[in-house]
């Protein structure tokens, strides 16, 4: 039997199938739900997991305000269950704002930035890595394999200070990779570097105050570029340097300001040299163990935070929870409905065509051709519905991708990769095809049992 004959016979039945419209609607909804809910669920859940695994999300601040942090205290806290390490963050945990004075302009990216520096104000922060914190690069070299006074910048680099636009939407980011190899010259914002230092009052109570240092120009070589994401520490205006580089910058600024760190005379030098007055990060082995660490260290009488030093947007966590629970429940409900409808459609098609099947058998058609007609009928319906669902998903994602790409970088996690969407559409197609195949296979025995004379006498 020719394919065109199968098609011809099936088409007539498709038009008569009373579940035609319902199947089209539900199956396209199923396809859209599988591709969209799954894509956004994967994007948000991955974002939350990436955040929870990040070093700074697991790092909790420990201050000497209640009790000073002697070596014994640090040792005791290090031995608390789930504590991965306790890191001295003196000179490292302040945010140091800088202005960009100049970039060497060795390549096109640097030359373009230099032009912009003439007319636009700049604002970046220079941050030192802490303990064994790693900031992997997506291009160029890591800080660990680079000399001091090297730095890494974000792939989406925005070092400018503009009026308004406090949500940082629709920024003209610079591609960080175009600046690899350049040397950037910076100076502390307002000609100063400020930080909080701890000191004792009445030899007992510990408090902190701001210190202001005369900023020197610093030159940093851009050796690599890191992935800038709202889920991990380091935004579009953050420049990372190694711990050694950061401490050297601060020490040189102190020297420039006339603070003698070896003398132990000023409160600043006493703080710098006395580790009991330092701030620390207590790094948890797992994000979920922060609360137990907080409880235990608080019981010991020390001042410790109850959350990490970096946080993800609450809306991202909520979206991840909603999509992975409610979203999956919705998906299951639509799936069950689609299965029920396809079963009903298959049964209806079979029951309404019994006499035709009998006639076809009487004139010599084999069971396999009759099965092929019925299978074609159902496949036509679901594939048509799949195409409608796929087209709707594609339009939906394209529109949302465009909208989010013009929002703040915190919303970039909602930009869906088309290859991921295609993968989920493939899964949706496989799913609906398998459902149809199973429904039709169930019918084979019924088709075989039909006797032409009985079927025709039922007419």
């Amino acid at each position, binding site marked *: 039997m020719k394919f065109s004959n199968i098609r011809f016979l099936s088409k007539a039945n498709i038009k008569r199938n009373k579940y035609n419209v319902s199947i089209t609607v539900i199956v396209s909804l199923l396809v859209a739900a599988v591709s969209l809910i799954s894509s956004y669920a994967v994007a948000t859940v991955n974002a939350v997991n990436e955040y929870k695994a990040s070093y700074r999300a697991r790092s909790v*601040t420990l*201050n000497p*305000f*209640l009790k000073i942090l002697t070596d014994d205290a640090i040792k005791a806290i290090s031995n608390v269950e789930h504590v991965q390490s306790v890191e001295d963050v003196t000179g490292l*945990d*302040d*945010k140091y*704002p800088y202005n960009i004075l100049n970039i060497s302009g060795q390549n096109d990216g640097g030359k373009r930035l230099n032009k912009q520096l003439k007319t636009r104000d700049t*604002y970046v*922060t220079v941050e030192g890595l802490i303990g064994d914190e790693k900031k992997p690069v997506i291009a160029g070299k890591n800080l660990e394999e680079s000399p001091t006074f090297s730095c890494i910048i974000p792939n989406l680099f925005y070092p400018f*200070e503009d*009026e*308004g636009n*406090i*949500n*940082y939407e629709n920024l003209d980011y610079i591609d960080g990779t175009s600046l690899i190899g350049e040397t950037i010259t910076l100076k502390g*914002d*307002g000609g*100063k570097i*400020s*930080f*909080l230092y701890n000191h004792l009052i009445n030899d007992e*109570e*510990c*408090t*902190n105050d*701001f210190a202001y240092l005369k900023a020197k120009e610093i030159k940093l070589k851009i050796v690599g570029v890191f992935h800038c994401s*709202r889920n991990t*520490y380091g*935004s579009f*205006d953050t420049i990372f340097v190694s711990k050694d580089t950061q401490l050297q910058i601060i020490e040189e600024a102190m020297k420039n300001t006339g603070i003698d760190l070896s003398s132990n005379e000023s409160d600043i030098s006493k703080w710098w040299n006395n580790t009991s007055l330092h*701030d620390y990060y207590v790094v948890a082995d797992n994000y979920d163990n922060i609360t137990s660490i907080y409880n235990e260290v608080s019981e010991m009488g020390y*001042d410790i935070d109850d959350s990490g*030093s*970096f*946080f*993800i*947007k609450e809306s991202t966590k909520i979206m991840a929870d909603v999509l992975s629970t409610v979203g999956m429940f919705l998906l299951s409900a639509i799936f069950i409905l689609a299965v029920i409808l396809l079963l009903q459609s298959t049964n209806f098609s079979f029951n309404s065509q019994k006499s035709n099947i009998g006639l076809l058998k009487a004139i010599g058609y084999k069971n396999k051709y009759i099965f092929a007609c019925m299978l074609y009928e159902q496949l036509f319906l679901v594939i048509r519905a799949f195409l409608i669902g796929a087209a709707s998903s594609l339009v939906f994602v394209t529109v949302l991708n465009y909208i989010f790409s013009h929002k*703040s970088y*915190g919303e970039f996690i909602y930009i869906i990769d088309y290859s991921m969407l295609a993968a989920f559409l493939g899964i949706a197609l496989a799913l609906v095809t398998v459902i149809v195949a199973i429904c039709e296979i169930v019918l084979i025995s019924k088709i075989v049992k039909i006797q032409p004379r009985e079927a025709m006498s039922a007419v």
Partner: protein
Amino acid sequence: MTEKGISRIKKILVTFIAITCLILIACIGVAAKTETYTFKVEVGTGLSDVVSLYMPKKGRISDTFGSCPTIFDGYKKSENKAQAINDTDGTKSKWKNFVLNTDGGPLTVAYGNSLSKGNYRIKYKNIGKGGFRATTTLSLTY
């Protein structure tokens, strides 16, 4: 003095006044702008409180607590710390420690002089002695 002389003096005076006014206007135009907001902060013993604000340009955020705050649980002193939390990039400033006394005068607490623009929350946390209730004037200078 002749009429011509008086007229010359008048001209000089008018010119001087005009230039002075222009300089004054220019100074006002480039002078740092300060916005202030008044909040009532209440931090229970061992607990925390949060106020939200947005910083339209990079600058300084500071709190000035009023005199004679109310301190809970019979204490005369309240040991606390506060930090500025940036909702835009998820970072937190270092904690700034401060102590309030029942008979204390106004106290200013600064969170940073060059904080980036964006949406912020100021979190106050009581770490020792009693909690407190006080009126604070939050100043944004940019």
